[in-house]
């Protein structure tokens, strides 16, 4: 079987158009930027009768050119996707095949956007997102991977091969390489993005990787926030010794090279000793404390409401906590038949490490600082996002588990 080219029969006339559109867009972007720096501040004119008029000045023209080039580029890219979906498998090359495989995601995205835009006035804050182009682009990117993860992980749709199976002879092969022995042209007859060092399909691994990230990253971030806030808020509020102690501990973990910590925590030897399990015992208790404090601080004036709520939430969360920390096959396994679930091996230790590494950053953002202003009031630098030295939760450090 022939290896696939990148764009197949579409490429013959779409590729030159793509290059022209991309070049036009780049030129328009540079022009737009230069005009913004050099040209007079606005193209608005005041008429003698006091009304305003926008004249066809350099700014307006640059914006129009950018928009035109951008639309052309977008249309060409859309043509690749639509062509790939419409043409039979393989005719539109690798790009076309990938577009076809992603068909469930395109449909889900189209439905989401159509419904959201149609009802955006009734959707509150979420609907506001669709008033801004940048907001829509960002939302589209996130939803694309979210739908991909769900389609691949739950419904087993997009991937063409098993992400872990190796097919001999395809080690480190370029994109579009045919699978030896495949006879029918169709999904599975090619490695769309080539083979990796262990002869597995890169495309399927990419798609399944999205599901792994969706499983770990959001929850780990929430946990890191809970641990960080539960420790950092009292440190910042009470100050004194508690602040010193917690800041010291937070700095201890922050000073640790993250990669070294990951290396030390996820080795098979470390699992034998059970340290990640014990860390889980310590770290997963924080959501319980967090929820209890949250309920108590909201309802402590209404005891008859607060006590039952606390009891119910502590019971449910406590049971979840005990089932979570008790994993068969680790040193901690005591729940027996009461154990609700076991997480597949590998996930918890990565999860625990991510939470452990990221929580001090959140804690530091609520904690104290060495400065006071001349008036004598404490000026807490780390509370304000973006102005402190990078340890703030609103910076990038917190919401990206495994980032830095």
């Amino acid at each position, binding site marked *: 079987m022939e290896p696939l080219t990148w764009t197949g029969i579409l490429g013959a006339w779409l590729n030159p158009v793509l290059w022209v559109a991309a070049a036009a867009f780049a030129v328009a972007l540079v022009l737009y930027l230069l*005009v913004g720096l050099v040209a007079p501040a606005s193209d608005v004119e005041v008429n003698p009768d006091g009304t305003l008029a926008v004249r066809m000045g350099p*700014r307006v023209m640059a914006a129009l050119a950018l928009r035109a080039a951008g639309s052309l580029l977008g249309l060409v890219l859309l043509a690749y996707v639509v062509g790939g979906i419409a043409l039979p498998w393989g005719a539109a090359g690798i790009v076309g095949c990938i577009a076809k495989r992603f068909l469930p995601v395109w449909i889900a995205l189209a439905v989401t956007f159509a419904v959201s835009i149609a009802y955006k006035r009734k959707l509150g804050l979420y609907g506001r997102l669709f008033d801004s182009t940048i907001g829509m682009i960002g939302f589209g990117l996130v939803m694309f991977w979210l739908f991909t993860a769900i389609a691949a992980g739950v419904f087993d749709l997009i991937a063409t091969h098993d992400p872990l199976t190796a097919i001999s002879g395809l080690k480190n092969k370029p994109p579009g390489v045919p699978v030896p022995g495949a006879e029918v042209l169709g999904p599975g007859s090619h490695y769309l993005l080539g083979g990796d060092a262990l002869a597995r399909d890169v495309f399927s691994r990419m798609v399944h990787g999205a599901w792994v990230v969706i499983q770990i990253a959001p929850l780990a971030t929430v946990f890191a926030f809970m641990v960080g806030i539960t420790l950092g808020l009292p440190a910042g509020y009470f100050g004194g010794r508690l602040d010193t102690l917690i800041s010291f501990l937070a700095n201890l973990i922050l*000073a*640790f090279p993250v*990669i070294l910590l990951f290396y030390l925590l996820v080795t098979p*030897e470390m699992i034998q000793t059970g*340290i990640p399990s014990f860390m889980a015992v310590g770290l997963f208790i924080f959501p319980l404390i967090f929820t209890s404090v949250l309920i108590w601080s909201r309802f402590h004036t209404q005891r008859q409401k607060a006590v039952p709520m606390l009891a119910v939430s502590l019971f449910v969360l406590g049971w979840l906590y005990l089932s979570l920390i008790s994993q068969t096959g680790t040193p901690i396994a005591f729940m027996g038949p009461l154990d609700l679930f076991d997480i597949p091996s590998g996930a918890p230790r990565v999860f625990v490490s991510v939470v452990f590494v990221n929580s001090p950053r959140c804690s530091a953002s609520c904690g104290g600082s060495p400065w006071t202003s001349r008036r004598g009031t404490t000026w807490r630098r780390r509370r304000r996002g973006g102005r402190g*030295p990078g340890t703030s939760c609103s910076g990038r450090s917190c919401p990206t588990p495994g980032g830095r």
Partner: protein
Amino acid sequence: MLMFIARRLLTMLGTAICLTFLVFWLTNLAPNLEKIAKTEAGSRITDAEVESWLDKNGFGQPLLVRYGEWLGVLPGWTTTDESGAVRGRCIASGQDPAEAPRFCGILQGDWGYSRVFREDVASVIGTRLALTGKLMAWVLVVMVPGALILGILAGMREGSRTDRVLSTASIAITATPEYVSGVVFIAVFTSSAVGLKWFNGSATSAMDDANLVNFTLPVLTVALYAMGYVARMTRASMTEVMTAQYIRTARLKGVSFPQVVLRHALRNALIAPFTVIMLQIPWLLTGVVIVESLFNYKGFGWTLVEAAGNNDIELLLGISVVSVVVVLLTQLISDVGYVYLNPRLRLS
């Protein structure tokens, strides 16, 4: 001020001790030691042989005692084997045991011996740190002016089209991780796939002789990623300064816009980026692991990976000491510098 610095240095010492003990404990857990014994004495040895190898090589003592030996507050271990020869922690091969010093820890300036590199830890760390330092210096040379110019141009007129284009660009380059941009750079600029064979895909030769051909891509990969972040911080700080009362006053007095930016806004806007840049330095030290592995540049990050992958205890401890000192020192400098730059603050 002196009190503050003294206290911070003391904290640094405490952190370094806690952290090295943590690393010591994690690397000296029983399964890890067993792995060391098996790599050193052969992978098919029995459990009893593992036990005796560990005892002979000083791993049999309690954890705290061995940590004390590494620190240099307790005398190093010695054993006498069947032939009567005395071996010990402080006795170099071929040295007369009577002449060897009793203590040989980090306090005596002895950082230990790296099992992976078959070399003294001090010299491994020295050479590797110098290599990463070279990479870091060039990254800073590229990144700092670029980021500041980008940030100031974007922030001086908030919401203008310059701002929007530059902000988009800086978000785009920060959102691209190094392992993506590095691979893209290699594919575009070094391979025959695109045909632009401008640069070298490997920076190994840059360790001795860095030039534009072999050093551009690693520097660019790290610098671009950090540049976007610092530019965003600079932009935030610049927009805030530009809305201040004194800027409006200057404008109303008839000062031209470039003068307002250069004379009045710039100095105040550079306070926040200063701390951000200082805090990039510890990240550069260990965060360059990916770039160093990608471009095969054998610096500090690469050494860290090698040491961690092979459980090289003394090298890992040395690396932790260096990284703690760098992290806390840059924090100290940024705190002191921040107070120096911003007269509204004083140290408590």
